[in-house]
């Protein structure tokens, strides 16, 4: 168990290093922050001074080395725009994003999983077909389109809800619905196919042949097995809690991490973009680790294989 955990942890660290390196290199190759922040018309001396002060005149490998050394000390750099620590900028945006993504996640799970189970239990009947129709519609419509349509209906035409901003919880309703819809649709489809797979297994027939009522067969025998693949998708959704709302935050002018990312990328505000990407990688990696632990808890076959592997 310990060895299993430690290999997972090492792999997680490598993933984070890779993401950070990738972001570092791509950002520096894709545009000069000095020209973007000072404007291309700025005097050459000013641009030169800007580069020197942020260390951009040094060779790439040296910048990279310094960057990693700073991270090791817990220093994630400062924003080139206003000079504030990048970490502060990001952290003050996180609550706003979570205020959207956590309710959206609850919505995804609360609607997606029961809908998928219901569809699977009514396979090929009208209920199944309708559920799957909504599901296909839900994840094929891009979130900015869905967001705009919702704004058009509920903000512009009916005037029930605000079209953007973050002054009160009412402002969160449309972005949360927009975010939740696609995820619920994906989860419904995935849960349905996981359930259908499990319902076709011989142990389901055994449970019925034993004399168990169908409801007990579904709850005690099918659901625990169908949970195994479904947990993967939910884990992925948990992993995108911090950065999963970039488009929706832009559509609804919600002051979260996603909008900060868009602005920072446009300005090549290096430290801010890198800090956000580090956060994204961290949440994704933590979610994956949690999923791996959950697998062992849900599926005894993995648990003993793991013990055998460690012993």
């Amino acid at each position, binding site marked *: 168990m310990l060895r299993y955990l430690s290999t997972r942890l090492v792999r997680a660290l490598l993933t984070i290093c890779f993401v950070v390196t990738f972001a570092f290199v791509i950002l520096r190759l894709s545009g000069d922050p000095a020209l973007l922040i000072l404007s291309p018309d700025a005097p050459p001396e000013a641009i030169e001074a800007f580069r020197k002060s942020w260390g951009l005149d040094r060779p790439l490998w040296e910048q990279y080395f310094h960057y990693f050394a700073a991270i090791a000390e817990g220093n994630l750099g400062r924003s080139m725009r206003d000079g504030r620590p990048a970490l502060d900028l990001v952290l003050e945006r996180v609550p706003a994003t979570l205020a959207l993504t956590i309710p959206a996640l609850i919505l995804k799970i609360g609607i997606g999983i029961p809908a998928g189970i219901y569809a699977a239990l009514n396979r090929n009947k009208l209920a199944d077909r309708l559920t799957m129709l909504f599901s296909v519609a839900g994840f094929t419509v891009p979130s900015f389109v869905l967001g705009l349509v919702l704004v058009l209906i509920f903000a512009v035409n009916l005037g029930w809800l605000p079209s953007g901003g973050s002054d009160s919880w009412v402002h969160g309703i449309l972005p949360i619905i927009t975010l939740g819809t696609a995820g619920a649709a994906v989860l419904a489809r995935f849960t349905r196919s996981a359930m259908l797979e499990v319902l076709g297994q011989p142990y389901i027939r*055994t449970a019925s042949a034993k004399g168990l009522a169908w409801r007990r067969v579904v709850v005690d*025998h099918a659901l*625990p097995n169908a949970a195994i693949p479904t947990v993967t998708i939910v884990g992925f959704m948990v992993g995108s809690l911090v950065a999963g709302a970039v488009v929706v935050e832009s559509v609804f002018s919600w002051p979260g991490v996603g909008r900060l990312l868009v602005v920072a990328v446009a300005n090549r505000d290096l430290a801010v973009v890198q800090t956000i990407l580090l956060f994204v990688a961290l949440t994704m990696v933590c979610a994956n680790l949690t999923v791996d632990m959950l697998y062992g808890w849900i599926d005894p076959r993995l648990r003993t294989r793991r013990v055998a592997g460690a012993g």
Partner: protein
Amino acid sequence: METLVSIRGLTVDFDLGHRVVRVLHGVDLTIGRGQAVGLVGESGSGKSVTWLAALGLLGPRAHVGGSVTLGGEPLLGVPVRRLEAVRGRRIAMIFQDPASALNPVHRIGRQLGEALRLHRGLEGQAARAEARRLLDRVGIADAGRRLDDYPHQLSGGMNQRVMIAMALAGEPDMLVADEPTTALDATIQAQILDLLRELRRDGGMSMVLISHDLGVVAENSDRIAVMYAGRIVEEAPTADLFANPRHPYTSGLLAALPDLEGPRRRLVAIPGTVPDPAHLPPGCAFAPRCPQAIDACIRAVPPLEHVGSDHRAACIRVQTAVAA
């Protein structure tokens, strides 16, 4: 002998959406109380479907016709609650691949306990003690510890013993063993068959042993019914069937079986394969593979008729010979 289960004109149609395929064409079978009946035939002949249909386990795509009675009470078309009271309690069933027939995420003890709670109202320590006794009964060593194991920690033979223990939990009147040894090694196969025989002798339970292997059913059945393409083509007491097979298909199955005594001989396989249920040949379904087929064979399906006092076969050549 008192009749326990009576199957009359049982038909099963599978609705495939674009068309309907009939896989069972009117099966008649009677199982006496305490009797052991072997059901033999190649894969796809309808052996398992017969019993899954009788217990209502085929799912919504199957349309079942005819009648099945258990102790005189009908089983087809009754509310599902009635069937649930029969499943496991009056008729228990075990399946081919024991490893996948047990739920991988639940411990053995829990899966046994479920049946004990359902059929005997046992809970907690009482259920655990009884589960342990059942595992002992089916020959699992160290039963107490095995209760806490998961199916993947046991061998195939042990899992089949667990399945049998689970079937015994309801103290059923009849056990349907559907290819119980097919997925197991030859030595384990013999042990499981011995166990089934012993249980039947001790408990007076009726048994239906489904197998594609005549050798497996020979020692474990009072009577044998041979199935082909969704019909019973021959039925007789075991000794009679082996000594005096009347249907060419039964003869073919026997010829494919090695003798334990007597001179060595070349085993003869039946040429061809079982027809697709959706495209059955006209007349007798076995005619295209039959060495004795004549023109009349493809004109009509031969009915299952008496060719001896307690011996029935569905072959017009045998029937005309008997009549002559």
